[in-house]
């Protein structure tokens, strides 16, 4: 069997993201798919793998990969779906690479779409109530807010163990908003202060509304292809992006089953991804770290080695993560200010690809050669870290 190398060939969002009340979850995925295929410089006929995830409640549908393949007129050689929550796209990236490199398909389409904002405004809850059955009969009766309550308890424990303050956590939201002002697709682009974050409506203490991600509509797509398939493209097609490292883990489902709320599985996945890529945290030029909540990003910044233990908020407080800083984090404006569709992971991959290609526009990090993307699902439950590089990137 010939050795094949799979690369990321194209990425895209749907035509519009954020608040898109006139689009269905399938339309959003179709737009993202077509845009990603155009970005890749490939033809529809090349796609013979489909990895699809959808979370629209308005059009709740089973068999996401069957529905999406049918809707897009694809009859793939491999089709699958997964639910690692916000890390799902990383799972799909992993499986797509495996499928391409094993010769099961030549080019795989990863799609995700959600109408969470519209669902919410039209009165459909973002998450169905977690029934008090099986493992959840020991948690649901106490009224835990999924998933905010879990992250709130992680935040309080982190603050307790390391003398971190709400102001320190708020610095994550402020830094992220600064990036959002540079992203025309970001939903929230007004100036934001630490005081604004502290004064916002409490949701699950110590987290207030502005410690929490947005609730958005949107679609995202990634095309993974065998390097040899890309040889026939137009000369102006964007350079392929290498996945130099990619690792996932699942440590639990319910937050009570994570023994240490300040040490999530990200520590393990980041170490594995760095090891695969043969790099250290110091080599990372830009990081897209899942930001469902300010505490999520603080824990991840520490876990991926961009801050010392207990210092996950320090680079944000010091301004190092903001535009122009030495440790740029969440350059698209993140789930806190750009968009958050319920499971946001695919958008961290999209932004990391744009950064290493050098095509991120006004928010481009100079000389970004190594980008790190990290997805989180559930209640700090599923983690995945990807290290992306691009030969021939840069403007």
């Amino acid at each position: 069997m010939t050795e094949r190398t799979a690369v990321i060939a194209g990425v895209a969002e749907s035509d519009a993201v954020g608040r898109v009340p006139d689009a269905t979850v399938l339309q959003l995925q179709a737009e993202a798919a077509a845009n990603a295929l155009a970005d890749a410089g490939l033809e529809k006929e090349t796609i013979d793998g489909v990895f699809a995830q959808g979370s629209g409640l308005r059009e709740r549908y089973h068999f996401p990969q069957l529905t999406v393949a049918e809707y897009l007129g694809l009859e793939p050689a491999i089709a699958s779906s997964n639910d690692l929550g916000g890390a799902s796209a990383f799972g799909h990236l992993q499986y797509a690479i495996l499928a391409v490199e094993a010769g099961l398909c030549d080019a795989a389409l990863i799609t995700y779409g959600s109408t969470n904002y519209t669902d919410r405004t039209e009165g459909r809850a973002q998450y169905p109530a977690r029934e008090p059955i099986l493992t959840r009969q020991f948690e649901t009766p106490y009224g835990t807010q999924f998933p905010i309550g879990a992250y709130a308890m992680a935040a309080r424990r982190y603050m307790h163990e390391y003398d971190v303050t709400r102001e320190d956590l708020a610095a994550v939201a402020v830094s992220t908003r600064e990036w959002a002002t540079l992203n025309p697709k970001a939903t929230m682009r007004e100036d934001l202060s630490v005081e604004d974050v502290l004064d916002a409506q409490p949701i699950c203490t110590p987290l207030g509304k502005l410690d929490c991600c947005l609730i958005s509509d949107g679609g995202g797509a990634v095309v993974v292809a065998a390097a040899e398939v890309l040889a026939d493209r137009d000369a102006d097609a964007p350079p392929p992006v290498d996945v130099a490292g990619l690792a996932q883990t699942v440590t639990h489902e319910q937050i009570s089953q994570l023994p240490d709320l300040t040490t999530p599985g990200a520590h393990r996945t980041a170490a594995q991804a760095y090891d695969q890529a043969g790099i250290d945290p110091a080599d990372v030029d830009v990081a897209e770290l899942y930001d469902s909540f300010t505490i999520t990003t603080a824990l991840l910044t520490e876990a991926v080695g961009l801050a010392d233990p207990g210092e996950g908020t320090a680079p944000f407080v010091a301004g190092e993560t903001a535009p122009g800083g030495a440790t740029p984090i969440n350059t698209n404006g993140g789930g806190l200010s750009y968009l958050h569709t319920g499971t946001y992971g695919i958008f961290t991959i999209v932004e990391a690809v744009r950064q290493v290609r050098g095509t991120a526009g006004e928010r481009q990090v100079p000389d970004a050669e190594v980008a790190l993307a990290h997805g989180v699902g559930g209640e700090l439950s599923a983690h995945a870290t990807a290290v992306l590089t691009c030969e021939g990137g840069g403007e």
Partner: protein
Amino acid sequence: MTGPDDWGDKPVPAVDPESAPFWDAAADGRLVAQRCEDCGEHQLYPRRLCRHCWSRDLAVVDLPGTGTLYSYTECHVAGQPGYEADVPYAVALVDLDLPAPNPSGRPIHLTTHVVDADPEDLVLDDSVTVAFRQVSTDPEIHLPVFEIEA
């Protein structure tokens, strides 16, 4: 005094064959866990096998019913149906004291309520003791809740 009538429409555990011994003990005022007779680890919630070594030789043992407040959050939005009138209310994680030996040192946390305390007064790592709150009469279900030790 609180009882099932005060629980309103809040969720009640859906007791199943695996969880029944836990809820039966709770109705009897005892907080129990499974102890693996092969490797000595404790686990909660109950499982068909030991999560550490996959042995099926599991005993149900009483826990001391003491522990410390590991973390908590005060929810200003209802996290489950029936909690709308209770906001803001606190949800906590308690780090349970385990009978010796505890070979791996892995803690057992329990999601719970801290009762008879103002959330403003809660301090992490404070000592807590189990109490039980009846939330259903048929079947008879008592949820473990915790009180701050004086």
